[in-house]
């Protein structure tokens, strides 16, 4: 075997050993478990928006200013848009009398971030929780949020993208 082939074989073994070790040892963290309901493509919250007030569960820190907008069957978090341009995503709803449950799973197009939202809307008020999960090849990080929302104006100008 030539020295170049030996070097290539050694590099493959070294990289494979390191990468396998990291992958095997890294534990995944599941996304937020959305309750099992009769979910339908969302439309019932179209034209509405909610300004959130809440906290990050892990740190207790206040949630930064965030507006959830629902337009034409699609959903957007203004904070996710700032952080990673998640764009507009489909949302699903499930009605329970006058109470509307909604959920949406959004992904950042440029980084391995997944955000799962689950909220309950009663009248003008919303209660929402969810997870922001980042799955890098060497670790998985997750933060949980819990917030309440009050009515505000939807950000309809951004939906053209």
């Amino acid at each position, binding site marked *: 075997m030539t020295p170049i082939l030996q070097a290539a074989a*050694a590099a493959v*073994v070294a990289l494979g*050993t*390191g990468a396998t*070790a990291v992958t095997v*040892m890294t534990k995944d963290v599941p996304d937020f478990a959305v309750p099992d309901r009769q979910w339908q493509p969302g439309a019932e919250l179209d034209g509405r928006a909610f300004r959130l007030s809440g906290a990050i569960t892990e740190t207790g*820190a206040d949630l930064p200013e965030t507006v959830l907008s629902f337009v034409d069957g699609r959903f957007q978090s203004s*904070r996710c848009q700032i952080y*990673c341009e998640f764009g507009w995503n489909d949302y699903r709803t499930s009605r329970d009398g006058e109470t509307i449950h909604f959920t949406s799973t959004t992904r950042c197009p440029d*980084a391995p971030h997944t955000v799962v939202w689950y909220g309950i809307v009663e009248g003008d008020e919303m209660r929402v929780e969810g997870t922001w999960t980042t799955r890098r090849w060497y670790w998985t990080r997750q933060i949980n949020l819990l917030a309440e929302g009050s009515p505000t104006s939807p950000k309809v100008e951004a939906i053209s993208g």
Partner: protein
Amino acid sequence: MMQPARTASGPTPLSIALRIVALIAVVVVATWGAHLIRDALDLTIMPDNEQTVHRAIMLGALAYIGLLALPFVPGAEIGIAMLTAFGAAIAPLVYGATVLAMLLAYSVGCLLPITSLARLLAVLRMRRAADLVARAAPLSRDARLAMLLDGTPPRTVALALRHRYLALALAVNTPGNAVIGGGGGIMMMAGLSGVFAPWPTVLTIAVAVSPVPLAVMLLGA
């Protein structure tokens, strides 16, 4: 003046137990200290800083691999700093990077001609070792081992050669091994010597570098 008689029977079970307790105490105190430092640094990873932290971790890991693979260059501190800052979550990456750095140094050693090792030892003023390597250079792997064992080394050297993978594992874990080349230097020499076969060496390193990351993972530092 009469000197107190020394027993030749070695350490007693009590002294061994005390040493183990002391070792555990050191690990616990170190873990507690790591907690305090991490809390003081307040390195909370949030969506707004995750990308920056990711880039810093990748850069740190590359520097760690490169420095750790170089002989006589202390690099372990970067790994310890990463473990302290990010805790158990970063332990798999630090472990993988350590294995990679050790095998990188070993691979470089395998590819370097053994005459380079002799020259290197001569430059380091280790003349007897350089002569030994120069005599071993033209021999096959088995003949080299036989030559080393047939010489007149102390009993511990012969023992270390017979159990060379165990000796290698102990050497890379010995505190202060930077004076003999550090992990990178030891592995490079192991590769250069030609008496360490690749697969047992991979296995040895995979086990040998696991205690610290494993301890951090188990203790959840």
